[in-house]
């Protein structure tokens, strides 16, 4: 097969399109690049969706943790502690066991049958876990940022008569985002890194449709040569990291656009957020 044929056969293999059989013998470099790249679709799918949905839950959780009312604060604190204090790996295993135990036929809720079997599939179950996990990590970041909003900003808002939700929406929230953004960028990067765990924990890869690391491990297993497939995954992830940094940087610039250039927050990569 030429490289173009390989590309058309395997480019979307990870989502079930194209050639069904994975290459078994005479594995070429092109095949490795194509299949691992195809697996990257899953990493991007998990990372992007979990990040997007997690952002909203994280904001709510950060506010709940900062709330005076213990009925709001305590559950938020426990949620954040549970997901930040335990390994993502164990969370995957546990979630899978819970989802498997759900009744096969679905749950009767007020006359409507809610199907639950899709939760045992990786595309939904692992996404739920990643979503809750990133929400907890981001909530802690936003909570810290919320606590470091300068007192003067709030006093100024009070002096202008801005109160309640308007004060939150126009003063507190933008400042919180601005202060938390560099840390949140790191969270996003390490969330994408964490997506590689999905097919290595309990969620099975359906019809050999896995993520980038799944195919890399497949090739390493077939060729007994780790020196080609793993660097390829590494290469793809460096590209992904650069892309993410660029995207988050442009948001960061927008959040900081009213500040003089020497006060702007810079994004620095700090590997302190792996799960």
């Amino acid at each position, binding site marked *: 097969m030429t490289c173009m044929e390989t590309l058309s056969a395997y480019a979307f293999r990870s989502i079930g399109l194209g050639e069904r059989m994975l290459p078994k013998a005479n594995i070429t470099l092109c095949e490795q690049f194509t299949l691992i790249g195809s697996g990257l679709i899953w990493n991007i799918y998990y990372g992007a969706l979990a990040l997007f949905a997690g952002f909203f839950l994280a904001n709510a959780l950060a506010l709940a943790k900062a709330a005076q009312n213990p009925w709001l604060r305590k559950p938020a604190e426990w949620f954040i502690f549970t997901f930040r204090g335990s390994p993502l790996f164990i969370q995957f295993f546990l979630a899978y066991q819970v989802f498997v135990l759900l009744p096969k036929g679905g749950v009767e809720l007020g006359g409507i049958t809610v199907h639950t079997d899709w939760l045992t599939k990786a595309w939904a179950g692992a996404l739920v876990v990643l979503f809750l996990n990133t929400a907890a990590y981001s909530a802690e970041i936003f909570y810290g940022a919320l606590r470091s909003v300068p007192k003067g900003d709030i006093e100024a808002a009070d002096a202008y008569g801005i109160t309640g939700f308007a004060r939150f929406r126009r003063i507190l929230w933008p400042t919180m985002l601005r202060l938390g953004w560099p840390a949140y960028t790191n969270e996003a990067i390490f969330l994408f890194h964490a997506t590689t765990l999905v097919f290595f924990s309990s969620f099975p890869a359906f019809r050999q449709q896995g993520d980038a690391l799944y195919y890399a491990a497949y090739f390493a297993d077939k060729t007994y040569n780790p020196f080609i497939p793993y660097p390829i995954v590494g290469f793809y992830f460096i590209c992904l990291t650069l892309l993410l940094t660029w995207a988050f940087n442009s948001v960061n610039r927008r959040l900081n656009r009213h500040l003089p250039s020497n006060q702007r927050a810079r994004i620095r990569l700090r590997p*302190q957020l792996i799960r």
Partner: protein
Amino acid sequence: MFAHCADPSALGGLNWLLCYLTSGKHLLFYYSFGTVLVLLAVTAPVALGMGFLGAMAARAHNRALSLVGKAYMLMVRGIPDIIFFMFFVIALDQGLETVAHHLRCPDWTEPIRTALEFKVCPEAKIPPNSAPQYVHQIYGFALAVVTFAIVFGAFAANVLYGAMNAVPRAQLETAEAYGLSPRQVFRRILVPQMWVYALPGLSNLWLILIKATPLLFLLGVNDIVYWAQELGGSKTDSYAYPHGDWRLWYFLFLLAFYLAFTRVSEVVLGRLTARLSRGQATMAGEAMRKAGA
């Protein structure tokens, strides 16, 4: 373990549970917690040492050495750590076997690496094929420890490099003005002061390291995740203690273990931070001075 556990089928209730939880396989399960603790106890200092070397290399005046240190630090930033775990275990194993192959079978003519296999002469196998099972297990565990140390050393290098740069420049300049040599400045001024700056990062790293221990399972070590899978799976009547699928409870137990471990670590590290902040020219140290006065 207990004498009355000899016939489990005759037991009931609490007695059954007691015997079940002290069966031979469960004892192995409890020992595997020891495996995790050993891994932590060995990896943490080694990783810290590697990190220290990495940070020192990155600060070196020698261009090449500095590049090596910086490359080591950069390694973990863009690439998921799990890829290193998967990679290093095979790469280290093959590297060792290749070296052994060249040493022990110099007149072996077949290629070591072909398209579909990696083959060294039988004498170069590490551990030897004839070795008992536990040697294989120890070798696997040792590979895992080295891998953990390499990866976490890179994280520690990041933290220590930042901490070394955070020590106020004036402190070092004062020392230089007193005529201390660069080596003395490093040993007497920089290193004692950097720990307080490094501690938040290192505490974080310790928590990350705790949370990375289930990856041992991926590296093929019989750790707590392995035993939870093994013991929790449903057992038919042919087993001494038949039961349904209890994996959920085993994993809940693991979750509780990790949460408790994290919590205890957080408390201890909090105390350590307070201890190290005493008398330091930082905000925390200043606050303590004021509170004491």
